[in-house]
Structure formats: C-alpha cells, structure tokens
C-alpha cells in the first residue's frame, strides 16, 4: 500500500511537470524582446525615393498617431508576397506607412512600386543598409510599429502575416 502511494506520487509529480511545460509552450516570448519593445526608434536622416528630399525620421513619425516602418526591397522575394497586405492596410486604415528601401537600385524600386502599387506615405532609401542595421533589423522584410513618440510598440521579423495585420489594426483603433 505504502509503495503504491509512493509510485502514484512519482507519477503525479511527472504529470505536474508535464502540465507546466505544456502550458509554458503557450508563452514563448521570442519576437518581442523587452528591450526592443520599450525602446525608442533611433533617429535617422534619409532621402525620399521619389522627391529626392531629405527627411528626418522624427518629423515623419511624430506627426502621426501611429507609424509602421516597413523595410523592403525589390529583390526580396517575401516582400513581394507581403506587399499586397500592406496595400490593403493602407486602403483600409489611415495608418502612416513608411517604407525603408533597403540596398536597392532606384529604378528597380520605382518599377516595383509601379507594378505592385505604393502603400507608403513616404519611401526613404537605405542604399548601404546602415540605417536598417542601426534600427536593429535582422534582414528584409521587417516592420516596426511606432507611436507618436517614436516608441517601438511592436516589431515584426519576416513578412507580415494576416494575423499580424489584424493585430496592427486592433492596436491603432
């Protein structure tokens, strides 16, 4: 009898650990590390693709309630699939979407936007990739959702999914 209780308690113990690990799986905290989430976006100056004018990132961001910075490139394959979602987002909402054209040729970038549509209010260029690196981007595509104080609310690594889009819409409303 005593032995059975012992066995049972060992089995219960492992069941408990199993449950905890199982529940823990629902809480992976990977794509929004704390330090990125509550940091301000680093200020940068860059040239606009079409108008060739210089802009300070702060001016663009802080005049709007929310801004989505999208790092993209015409040669990047996943950006192409993501682009339709950005187009939809720009039509549905009045979110300020800013493009950061990463390591691209000007002609290719313009061609890409002519073909696929232009969801961006401004399209800044980052010809050697230095700005993207200083923003802490891993690669293309990547998007940062910011509030009007340049604070990073959310960071999306890789192409935006439909879930991400609805999440963005929820946040800005």
């Amino acid at each position, binding site marked *: 009898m005593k032995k059975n209780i012992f066995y049972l308690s060992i089995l219960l113990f492992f069941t408990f650990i199993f449950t*905890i690990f199982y529940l823990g799986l629902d809480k992976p905290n990977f794509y929004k590390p704390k330090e990125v989430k509550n940091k301000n976006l680093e200020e940068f100056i860059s040239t606009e693709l079409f108008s060739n004018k210089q802009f300070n990132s702060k001016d663009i961001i802080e005049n709007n309630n929310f801004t989505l910075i999208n790092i993209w490139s015409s040669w990047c394959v996943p950006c192409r699939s993501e682009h339709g979602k950005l187009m939809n987002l720009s039509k549905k909402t009045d979110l300020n979407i800013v493009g950061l054209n990463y390591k691209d040729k000007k002609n290719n970038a313009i061609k890409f936007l002519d073909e696929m549509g232009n969801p961006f209010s401004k399209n800044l260029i980052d010809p050697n990739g230095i700005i993207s690196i200083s923003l802490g981007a891993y690669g293309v595509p990547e998007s940062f959702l910011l509030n009007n104080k340049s604070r990073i609310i959310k960071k999306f690594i890789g192409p935006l999914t439909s879930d991400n889009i609805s999440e963005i819409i929820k946040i800005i409303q």
Partner: protein
Amino acid sequence: MILSHIGYYSLLLGFIISVILLFYSIFYFIKNSQKINQNIFSLLFLQFFTVVISFISLVYSFINSDFSNATVYNNSHSTKPIFYKITGTWGNHEGSLLLWLLVLTLFIFLFIIFSKKQPVKYRFLSIFFQQIIILGFFLFLLLTSNPFSFLFPIPNEGLGLNPILQDPALAIHPPILYLGYVGSSIIFSASLASLIQKNINKEWANHIKKWIQIAWFFLTIGILLGSIWAYYELGWGGFWFWDPVENVSLMPWLCLTALFHTVIVLEKRNLLKSWTIILSIATFTFSMIGTFLVRSGILNSVHTFANDPERGVFILIFLFSLIFLSIILFFIYQVNESRSEKSFFLISKETSILINNWFMMYFLSVILIGTTYPIFLEVITNEKISIGPPFFNKLIIPFLILFLIFMALGPNLKWIKDNYKNIKYSRIFLFFVCIFISFYIIKKTSSEILFISILGGAALYLIFITINEFLNKKNNFSQTISHFGFSLFVMSILLNSLFSSEFSANMKLGQELAYNKEQIKFLKIKSIDKENYKSIIANFEIKDEKKNIISLYPEIRIYNQPNILTSEADIKTTIFYDKFIVINLLKGEEIFNVRYQTKPFMIWIWISVCLVSIGGILSVLKKN
C-alpha cells in the same frame, strides 16, 4: 527537386523499416529465438542506409542551392562559401534532426554488431527500445519538420544562414555533441532491456561501460567546442554564460559522469544496480529535455536559432511517454538488491564513488532548478525572471571545494574495505600547505579571499596528489589524467576570473589611450568586400611597459544575406594569457566601441578539458 523526392521517400522507407523492426524484435523475443537472424541485421543496415541517403540528398540540395527545398531556402544563399553550404545542412532545425536520426540508426547498428557476447533476448529488447526512440524521431521529422518540403514558385535566392553560425568550430560542434547526446540513447535502451531481462550484473556493466565512455567522450568534446566558439565568436570574452542552452548540455553530462563512475562499482562489486539504471534513464531523459527546451522556444536564449512551439508539443509528449514508460518498467521489474549488497563499508572506494554521485546530483539539481524555475514561475504567476551566473556561482563554488578534496582522496582508497590508518598524514599536511599557498597568492590580489583561497587550495591539492599518482607505477593512468585535467581546469578558471581585466572605450581613428601600464593605439582601418560579407578590419597596437608591441586586428563583418552585423574578435594567445580585442560599430564608420581584455590562462581551460576527455577515451581503449 528530384533529390528532395529521393530524400523524402527514403525517410518514409526508413520509417516503415522501423515499424517492421519493432514487431520483428518483439516477435522473436517472445518466440525465444536462439540467435539474431540475418534479416534483422539487414533491416538495421537498410534503415541506417535510408537515413544516409536522405541525409546526402539534403547535403546535395544545399550544395546546389536548390531553393525549391524550403529548408535550403530558409537557411542558405547562393553566395555562401561551399563549406558553409555543407555545414548549413545541420545548422537548422530540420537538418539537425536528420543528423540525430542518422546517429541513432548508426548507433543501434553498431551496438548489435558489438554485443554478440550478450544474451540474445537482451539484444532483441535493446533493438525494441531503440526502435521506439527511432520511430518517435521519424514521426517527428515527417510530421512536424520535414526537411524536404517544397516551395512553389521557386524563389530566386535563399534567406541565408545566420552569420554567427558560419564558423568552423560550430560546423563540427553539433555532430560531435549529437554523438554524445544520441550515444546516451543506446545506454537508455540497453539498461531498460537488461532491467527486464534481470541481467544487471558485472558482465553487463563491463559491456555497457564502453558505450558510456564513448558517449561521455563525445559529449565532453562537443561542449568544449561550443564553449570555444562562444568565446571568440559571441564577442563577450567569456566562455561559459550559464545560458539555458549551455545548461541543458551540462545536465546530461553530469548524469553521464555520475554513471561513468557508478558503472565501475557495478562492474567491480556488483553493487548499485538500481542506481545505475536510474542514471542511465536520467541521462537520456536529460538529453531529450535539452532538445525540448532548445527546440520549442520555451526558454529565451542566445543560442536558440530554430524554434517552434508546435514542435515543442510533439517532443514534450514523446519525452514524457518515454519517462512514463521507463518509470513503469522500473517499478514492475525493480531490482531486489539483497541486504548484504546494499551495505557499504564507510571507508572504501565504493563510498567515495557514491560521494562523487551525490555531488553530481547536487550540481545537477542546482542547474536544473536554475534553468527551469523561470518557466514554472511564468506559468504559475505570469512573472518573468531570469536567473544569472551569481545564482550558479553561489550554489556551486562552496561545494566544489569539498568535491575537489574527495576527488583527491577517493581514488586511493581500496575496494570493499579500507582502513583509516592507511590514510597518510602527510597528505593532510599537504592540504593545509596548499591552502596556505593559495591564501598567500590571493591575499595580494583580491579582497574576497576566504572562499577563493580555500577553493584554490583544494584545486592545488588535487594537482599535487595527481602528479604524485603519475609518479606511482601502479597508477590508473586514464583516471589520473582526467582528474589532473579537472584540477587544472578549476585552477585555470579561478586564476582567469581573478586576474582578468577589461578596458572599454569609444575610440576614433588615430586615437591613443593609456590603460593599466599599457598604451592602446587605434592605427588603421580598411574595408574589404568578401564573398558574402563586407569586412571592416581595424588595426590596434598595444604597447606594454617593456615596449613590447602587439598588433591586433579585430573585424566587423556586414553579411549580405541575411543582413547581420557580427564582430570578430582578434585574440593573441600565449601560454600565460590571451589578449582579446573586439570592436563594435557606433555612428557611421568613424567611432568604434573598443573592448580590450587580458585573460590569463585562457588556453589552459581548453587544454585541461582536453586532458579530461583524453582520460575518458583512454579508458575506452584500455583492455580489461
């Protein structure tokens, strides 16, 4: 394209063979077959062969940059050097699991070949349990992480391999570590088989000992390689960070080390039977827990390069099925050790090995709690914490002192019964001499003298005792060299942490700064375009008080695919110290953050771990 098909169907075939083998082995087991027939050998070989085929197809897809394969697309790039295209095969989740499977099937095949002297029923059962594990991994691979899934339309270019993984040490680190991890699977299967067959005895211990030593050797070397990589690639100048992923590799290592010693008691004295089985089960369980924690993304760590919670559910269920299976089997077939077998004489080699085991279990529980506690806390209270080095250092260092002393005394005791009168008083005297020496050294340099000087003394004591052993003709060479290596290891870490110094500043080109009697001058900078990255190489000159000049060339690499910045440290190694310098980009390409470190006895840490593992491999080669 065609390669992906070959790889995939070859995997399916391997899976089917696994099911057949499962039934075959249990069928022959019940039939009381007198020998393992040729079919089983052929099937085991065929199974290994199918995994080899599918592994080669994956390697080929990587070499050819076949982006129709999703794994290749996600982890490779056409401009990557050929060497990293090949090693990229196991630098990702799918490929590394395929490597697991490769080693699993190889090990069971070798095991059956080299266990001809063992009872037939025991071998059938070993095949049975190993096939359960193999089956689980086949299912895992095919259902949740197929390395051969297609992409359509075919992308022009891949996403690239994480640049910090593009490194020669890390290229061979996973295969070696896996040999250790997976090697423990065969110990697991064999111990369950012998539990059911009730043949846990001296002969079995003698036969399983070699497998334990081989797995232990590879695990040690694997951990060492990972640590060396972290030292020069992550750019922090440390070699062990108590990071969750490092900890999970240390947990099976501690279990295996305990097992390594316990199995000797079983071999010599026919004692500690249940304990040997528990340790064998625990070792593999911890390897699996490691895989779970790393692959599922449940823990946040610098090392998690591939993770996916859905895969986590699969490993978790599989892992706990194995745990429950082994617990139930253990209860049903528990070993009745007779009373005389249980009793130990206090002063004997057995006792000292048992003490070793207690320490190992203590270290293991500290690491286990430190690693998994944040998960428990988050699930129960939603609070996020992270447990860092101070926790581990505080709980481990004091016990390390006693551990070292027992390590010096234990091996000299006799089996069965020793007399305390045989203990030489000169040794006790020597111990106090060692403490005194280290106290004297440390008093001059550090304020925290108490613990460190005793620890240093204990390590020094072990060094003296083991050197003394070398001079003794009847010594056990493999054991002595391992223990000597360990004492050297503790000693070098101690000196390293005591005398390390670090200097950090923002510097411009041409600037010169003074630090600790040394002059650091930022001389030159140049930028070179390489195959798949742009490299910025700086040149620093360190001039010490005797006007010796050392030139160091730290580097920043801006990789193109994926676009990541990495810092490559430049390290000048001598037998006394490492000079370590690493730079980081600040604004533009003008001001750099420079970190310059002097790390004494760094190379001795690596050498001592090599010595420890050489001891392990020597005992594999040793004749009985």
